[in-house]
């Protein structure tokens, strides 16, 4: 039995595409942490060790609470990450998740404030509203690309700013709270149900958003890997011409990919603001989550499951950075530095993969593998 599974592992190591990728991602992560450690070492040798330790263990520092928080903070990142990854698989670079997220957030909050008659369905409808408006916002660059050949990167960049200003205008006109100069708070019935009773103590704000994220991961994973629809999307992403040759409707798939990507970003927006005590601002700055999403999707090798783990990892680092404030005096930017370096190393994945493959071929006994 043991032997058999051993062999299974070797098989995986040797044959599966993912094995080398996973390993090289791990190398990238270690590299990033190392650099972060060196920076801390350079600045305050006495604290560098404890600093690194904190970053790695922050998630567990405050038991179930910090653990719950970690997951909670990673939810929007996972979602925007998948949004970007999904478009990426169709060969589109959705740098516009930020705009889609903002517009989606507005829609969700608007519904959350006004459609109180929905009762128990309220929050669900609010999330759906976020998805729909996000989809709408995402479909614009899709349409422009398909019918006017407009580069989706530029279009998305422009739509980020337009979305940001538009949401401010909409907030001011429809859901404005004068005292706080922010958006009104959604009705309690629109809040995402807390999960804390189920899996953590009462102190974590972990909510249904995480379940939503898991559902999105599952659905996108199935779409991309098990369905004819995903097949079309990927085929268009890999080779436009061959797809046309095969009779696959390129335009349709581009539009759908961007629309779905936008919908997911919209859901991310909903999960961010359908919580008590977090209000949309009228400050004209782009929400960072959208851009972090790009990094995370890349770190997750633009596969939904990869993004899930990359996102959780990101949340953990963030949490670590938060606790860094008590164990050391390093400013939290150290976390961003580490993440940046990890992303950079993950860009070198190709190189690592060659190397890893080389090593594997050395270490894995040919006999163990058994080619089919």
């Amino acid at each position, binding site marked *: 039995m043991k032997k058999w599974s051993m062999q299974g592992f070797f098989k995986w190591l040797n044959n599966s595409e993912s094995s080398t990728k996973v390993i090289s991602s791990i190398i990238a992560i270690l590299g990033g942490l190392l650099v972060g450690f060196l920076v801390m070492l350079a600045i305050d040798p006495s604290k560098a060790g404890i600093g690194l330790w904190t970053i790695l263990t922050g998630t567990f520092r405050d038991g179930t609470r910090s653990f719950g928080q970690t997951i909670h903070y990673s939810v929007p990142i996972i979602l925007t990450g998948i949004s970007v990854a999904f478009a990426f698989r169709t060969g589109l670079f959705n740098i516009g998740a930020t705009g889609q997220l903002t517009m989606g957030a507005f829609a969700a909050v608007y519904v959350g404030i006004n459609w109180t008659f929905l009762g128990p369905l309220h929050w669900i409808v609010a999330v759906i509203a976020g998805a729909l408006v996000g989809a709408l916002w995402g479909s614009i660059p899709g349409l422009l690309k398909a019918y006017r050949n407009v580069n989706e990167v530029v279009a998305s960049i422009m739509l980020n700013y337009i979305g940001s200003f538009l949401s401010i205008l909409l907030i001011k006109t429809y859901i404005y709270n004068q005292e706080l100069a922010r958006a009104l708070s959604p009705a309690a019935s629109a809040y995402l149900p807390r999960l804390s009773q189920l899996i953590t103590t009462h102190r974590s704000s972990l909510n249904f958003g995480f379940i939503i994220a898991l559902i999105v991961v599952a659905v996108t994973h199935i779409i991309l890997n098990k369905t004819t629809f995903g097949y079309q999307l990927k085929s268009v992403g890999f080779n436009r011409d061959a797809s046309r040759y095969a009779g696959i409707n390129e335009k349709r798939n581009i539009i759908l990919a961007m629309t779905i990507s936008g919908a997911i970003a919209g859901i991310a927006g909903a999960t961010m603001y359908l*919580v008590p005590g*977090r209000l949309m601002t009228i*400050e004209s700055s782009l929400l960072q989550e959208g851009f972090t999403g790009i990094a995370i999707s890349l770190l997750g090798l633009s596969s939904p499951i990869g993004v899930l783990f990359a996102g959780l990892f990101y949340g953990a680092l963030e949490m670590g950075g938060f606790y860094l404030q008590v*164990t050391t*005096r390093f400013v939290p930017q150290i976390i961003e530095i580490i993440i940046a370096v990890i992303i950079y190393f993950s860009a070198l994945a190709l190189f690592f993969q060659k190397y890893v493959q080389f090593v594997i071929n050395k270490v894995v006994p040919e006999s163990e593998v058994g080619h089919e």
Partner: protein
Amino acid sequence: GGADTFEIAMITDYGDIDDESFNQGTWEGIVEWAEANDKTYAYYRPSEVSDAAYLESIELAISAGARIVITPGFLFSAAVGEAQTLHPDVSFVLIDAVPNGGVGENTVSVLFAEHESGFLAGYAAVRNGARRLGFMGGIAVPAVVRFGVGYIAGAYYAADELGVNISFPANRYVYLGTFGPSDEVRTRALSWYQDGSDIIFAAAGGAGTSVMSAAEAANKFMVGVDVDQSYLSTSVLTSAMKDLGSAVATALDGFFGDSFPGGQTLTLGANNNGVALPNDFSRFVDFTTVDYNTLYSRVASGAIDVPASHAELVSFFSAQGLTGLDIGASDIQP
């Protein structure tokens, strides 16, 4: 493990301790006091802008040994409201707001009469010869609104005193929608100056620096906010300050002197030197320390009852027999 403890803690709402206005003023106050009385101190940044995250940071501070937690910014109302009951043995200082559910026994609220500060600035500007005025607020949060209202009142009050006409049209009273510097803000300010504005009061944190740069380009003046910003640019005529330092000091003196004014709401205004202009008037031509002091005493004594809202502004105008107010309620409270 093995962390040192910090008795005095500050939490930032958003932005950072080097925003060159509100947070920074508070933080410098803390540092100054703590160094003088050698106490340990630290600040904490929440991981996001939400009540939950604020509470999380407060409790992080407490876990790091904080006995008194200072939270500058009205966004903390909810978080402090909860924290003060969850942690009765810790003291809280909430600046610019009152906790949700009232001020607890272990909490003081500190409010500033920003309108008085703005009044002083507006008055000084007009006395110094400004005739066409402008106001750029960051976002219409209560404190910024009070700054603006007071500024209007002060300007017209001085104009009336001098028997001159000033122009302060509605389209010269705006909220920028940002506290950050940008070329947009600069261009906007520049266009005002170009169109004849003599001075702009920027109650907009970092965005103020873009106004400064515009003022420099146009060879005109602007008014800084919160702290004395004259060091940032030669174009800063004066700054409408709120003395965060002394506010912090009062609270800390109280706390460590076992006379913590728990349960109280301190309103810091001219009457208790909570607001002021920097007492360097070298950049003025027609306004002196003497003029300032006389004005200040009249505000402090309540002889001039400075308005804080549009409604009060209107009644202030009729009471003082002022005319020409062009800025409406919807401009001041969009």
